């Protein structure tokens, strides 16, 4: 799209932001690029039809991997020195289960964080150029792209919906 610009509508209220998102999606004229909010918002997630995050699968995979790693580590180290002491077996379930459990929790949390980094695309320093600082404070920002010549009509739409239109960021994607 030549000469495309981004316009951010800043809402003081999540209900209005959600209503504007629904209206924009119904119109299907200007694509919503992003929504920035100071708190997690179910209403906005519903309006954006955001599906449940899949980070839980990363956690589960990490947990399973961790359990088997911890258990295998305990078995491996015990079997390196095959000296039976006090008639006790070399490979025992109860204490090795504890090792497996600790590694399961550790790797599950690592999987979780890797899931956030991968699926949430963090770190995202590039995203800061389209970000309005008010959106980490008290405003709900809806970032919409439009051709340069429609900028005023998009701004008017936002004003009708009860938003302030950010003087910044208004970037030309081609610049």
């Amino acid at each position: 799209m030549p000469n495309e610009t981004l316009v951010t509508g800043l809402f003081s209220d999540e209900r209005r932001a959600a209503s504007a998102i629904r209206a924009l999606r119904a119109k299907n004229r200007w694509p919503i690029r992003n929504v920035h909010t100071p708190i997690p918002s179910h209403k906005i997630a519903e309006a954006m039809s955001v599906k449940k995050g899949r980070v839980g699968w990363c956690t589960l995979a990490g947990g399973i991997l961790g359990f088997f790693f911890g258990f295998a580590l305990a078995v491996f180290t015990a079997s390196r020195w095959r000296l039976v002491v006090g008639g006790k077996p070399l490979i025992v379930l109860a204490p090795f289960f504890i090792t497996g459990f600790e590694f399961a929790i550790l790797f599950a949390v690592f999987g979780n964080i890797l899931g956030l980094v991968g699926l949430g695309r963090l770190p995202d320093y590039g995203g800061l150029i389209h970000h309005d600082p008010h959106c980490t404070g008290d405003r709900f920002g809806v970032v919409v792209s439009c051709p340069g010549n429609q900028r005023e009509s998009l701004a008017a739409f936002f004003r009708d919906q009860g938003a302030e239109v950010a003087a910044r960021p208004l970037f030309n994607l081609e610049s």
Partner: protein
Amino acid sequence: MVSPEGTSMGELTFAKVDDIVLDTLGPPERGYWLAVALLFCGILIGAACWVYQVFAGIGVAGMNIPVAWGTYRVNFLFWIGIAFSGTLISAILRLVRSDWRTPVARAAETMTVFAVCTAGLFPFIQLGRVWLAFYLLPFPNERTLWPNFRSPLMFDLLAVGTYLMVSSLFWYTGMLPDLATVRDRAAGVRKKIFSLISLGWTGSHTHWRHATRVYLLVAALAIPLVISVHGGVSRDFALAIVPGWHPMLFDPCFMAGAILSGLAMVLILTIPLRRLFHCESLIPRQVLENVIRAVAVIGLIMGFFYAREFFISGYGRNPMAAKMLRWRLFGDYRDEFFIMMFCNVMLPLLFFSKRVRTRLPWVMVIAICVDIGMWFDRFVVLVMGAGRGFLPHAWGLFSPTRVEMGITFGGFCLFFFLYLLFAKHLPSISMTEMKETLHQGGPHAE
């Protein structure tokens, strides 16, 4: 929710929350740097004692046979206990959606991280020859011997190491949105630093979609972990066939003690923070009262555990248990024992009185006494257990040397030093969670 200072939670807005919390990050006064400098001197005293111990040998500590675990192990147990409560407040109360935890959750999470860091130093200090610490890692030595994963000490190492990493990640992921808020209002070098550590967080719907789930899942995973950490610590004792260490109820008793000391520490950290940073409207008295009530109830639970132990020792037909009870009541460590009973069971009962509960200086004094009592609880369990085996050849006494006292003092200074640095440089109240709480309560925008 109305604070006695006259600011109601309903009067707060998102912008006011940001303003109050960001004000705490303003240029510190001279008194702050004085406190930081004094605590740093305390750390230097502890470090000097440790360096002396490294050069002179572990014999400069009072540990002996049979009391081979002395003050260092007591400190380790005490600080791990302090850490326990942070996870309780931040993770368990989050999962059960108790909103009153919000104003003190960040303080509790930070307390957890710094308490585990402090606790983690003591096993290394106790090693004496600290340069051989790598023997604990799964790494074969020159005789191809690997660490023994059947030992409760290895459970302990794994659990504490995991707990340090998990609690640090929990703390950091929860703080990401707040770091971004600071970044967006900062300038110069501070802006650059916060830009880097906030990982480019913008609060986009993609970020929230995954971050809220991650935070919830880490909270859920932290609960079994923290129970296993304290279970692991208590099994260091309970798996040994020593008269004072073998009771089957060591796990819940240790956990109750940990919660008691941790909640008291939350009060010790939060009451001055609230006053010095003028956060009375964000941390209303009602929140503190909930913590105070929890201390009172956990004090009763501790009383139950102590009473149960006396009953079983006195009523049972185990002569060693009866002797142990007599030694506790009338023996060499009776003073420590009575300090423990008075501070952990008697003093928290005062919190049932509204007159005491609503006077914060009294609350502060009692909270400090509770933590002193819990330090002595660990001392009594450890030293009295190790000092009285089944046969007289395994009987002995322990008293801490100046080196141990110096290192203990340094440990306390390190914890408060780290906390003081945190309180002035990072948001000590979760702005995001405060806003969420306000949002659920009504309109926020000006």
